[in-house]
């Protein structure tokens, strides 16, 4: 009986060991990057790389972010109008769209767009570099690939995502306003006044602040999946997919945690 139990325990441990190793790898990855922060502060990073990623994650992503947030604002306003018209309170659509966009939808939609736009690109880029032995080349030059490749991306994301969120929020509100003006025949001034009454600067700032942890999660998930992609073309593809799926999951989990924390301070 005893040997059988031992055998079963060993089988279970064999099954869980890889999972445990998978779980420790992201922690090790973050640790390796964190260890390089003092060096980064002393020497800075390559400006050229930073500018490239700022262009990719900021300037190039802006049109799609604006479009998606505008459309989401319109969708919300149309749905809100259907429900609120039953109570003769169409004007409250401005409050609902403003609050939901600024508190939740704006930061979340921008993060999700950036997951597909930047997170997958980071994973595919690093995965291909690994496949082409570019990562090995960096190492044998004495350069730590983790910090060399992650810091410019992370800095660009930390700068561009809050800005994109601000633009996204404005686009979302304008989307709602467009529906208010054209379908609900609300005057632009009335809609804008209601929106400003519903949201205040603290709500706006707290919403934008969410984009910092989201930027960190998208960058880390993308880079981690790239570094851990298998050394073949399918592996690179799977790495990009994993980056997107894990980013979305992490963003939603982080959003829940942040929302709960915000609820403690009454927002």
């Amino acid at each position, binding site marked *: 009986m005893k040997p059988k139990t031992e055998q079963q325990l060993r089988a279970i441990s064999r099954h869980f060991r890889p999972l445990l190793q998978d779980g420790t790898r992201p922690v090790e990855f973050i640790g390796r990057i964190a260890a390089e922060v003092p060096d980064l502060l002393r020497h800075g990073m390559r400006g050229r790389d930073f500018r490239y990623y700022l262009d990719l994650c900021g300037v190039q992503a802006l049109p799609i972010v604006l479009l998606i947030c505008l459309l989401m604002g319109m969708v919300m306003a149309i749905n809100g109008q259907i429900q609120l018209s039953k109570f003769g309170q169409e004007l409250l659509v401005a409050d609902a769209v403003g609050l939901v966009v600024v508190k939740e939808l704006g930061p979340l939609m921008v993060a999700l767009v950036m997951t597909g736009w930047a997170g997958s690109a980071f994973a595919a880029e690093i995965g291909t570099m690994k496949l082409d*032995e*570019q990562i*090995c080349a960096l190492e044998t030059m004495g*350069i730590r690939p983790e910090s060399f490749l992650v810091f410019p991306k992370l800095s660009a994301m930390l700068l561009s995502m809050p800005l994109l969120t601000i633009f996204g929020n404005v686009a979302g509100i304008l989307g709602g306003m467009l529906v208010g003006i054209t379908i609900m025949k609300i005057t632009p001034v009335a809609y804008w006044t209601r929106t400003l009454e519903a949201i205040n600067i603290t709500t706006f700032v707290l919403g934008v602040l969410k984009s910092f942890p989201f930027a960190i999660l998208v960058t880390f998930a993308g880079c981690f999946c790239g570094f851990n992609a298998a050394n073949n073309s399918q592996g690179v593809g799977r790495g990009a997919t994993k980056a997107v799926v894990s980013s979305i999951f992490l963003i939603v989990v982080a959003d829940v945690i942040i929302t709960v924390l915000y609820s403690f301070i009454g927002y």
Partner: protein
Amino acid sequence: MTKKNKPEIEVKDLTIGYGKNVVLENLNFQVESGEIFCILGGSGCGKSTLLKHIIGLYAPLYGDILIKGNSIVNADEQRRRKIMREFGVTYQGGALFSSMTVAENIALPLEEYTNLSEEEIEKTVEEKLHMVDLDGFGDYMPSELSGGMSKRAGLARALALDPKLLFFDEPSAGLDPITSAELDRLLLRLRDTFGATIVVVTHELDSVFAIANRVIMLDKQTKSIMAEGSPVLLRDTSPNEKVRAFLNRDGLKSDVAEELRITEVP
């Protein structure tokens, strides 16, 4: 009596592999200063894996590797990176950073590890490009280069910090005979003009006989070194039949002879 120079590389009781799977075991050899040393063997015998252990990318299962007397196996992260800066590596496909131009690739180690001004870096880059016959290609992106040019550009980057020790992983693979011969000439020039020590992983015999001072031949079955010495001597006098067959391409010759016999019209 002159004191013998310290070997550039010493491999001691080295066992390498992935996890529990041993690829090569109990390897002992030295690479002397100023020689071209080739690591030979059939496909899948662990040549490239051995190279990646020597340059410190992988940790061995057992044993030690000394580069200029310093253990790359037991060194801490900082020290290991310092040792790595003392040599240059050229990878199979060139491994140029695809987001940078050729000139930016070559400039990278100079920007990271020297205090040279922008003009001095530019001048050094031009010098290195000239060394590998790529004058005027500095502004090209790696995707615009042919296979042979990528390898030469990779070599120029490896030469950026003027290392006296160079590693090449399959330099002739996928190249036409003329480009391959040009690369061989370049390696000989690096050895003879700059006194570089060069370690080459290859199975291109023409290249081996043209450039190698000494070779080791790895055996997949015994997971060890099958032969060590001058390629010409090994080809002509090795007691090991497998070694002679490899270096004489005997397998290919007998296959061709057999084929000829079959197709011969009586």
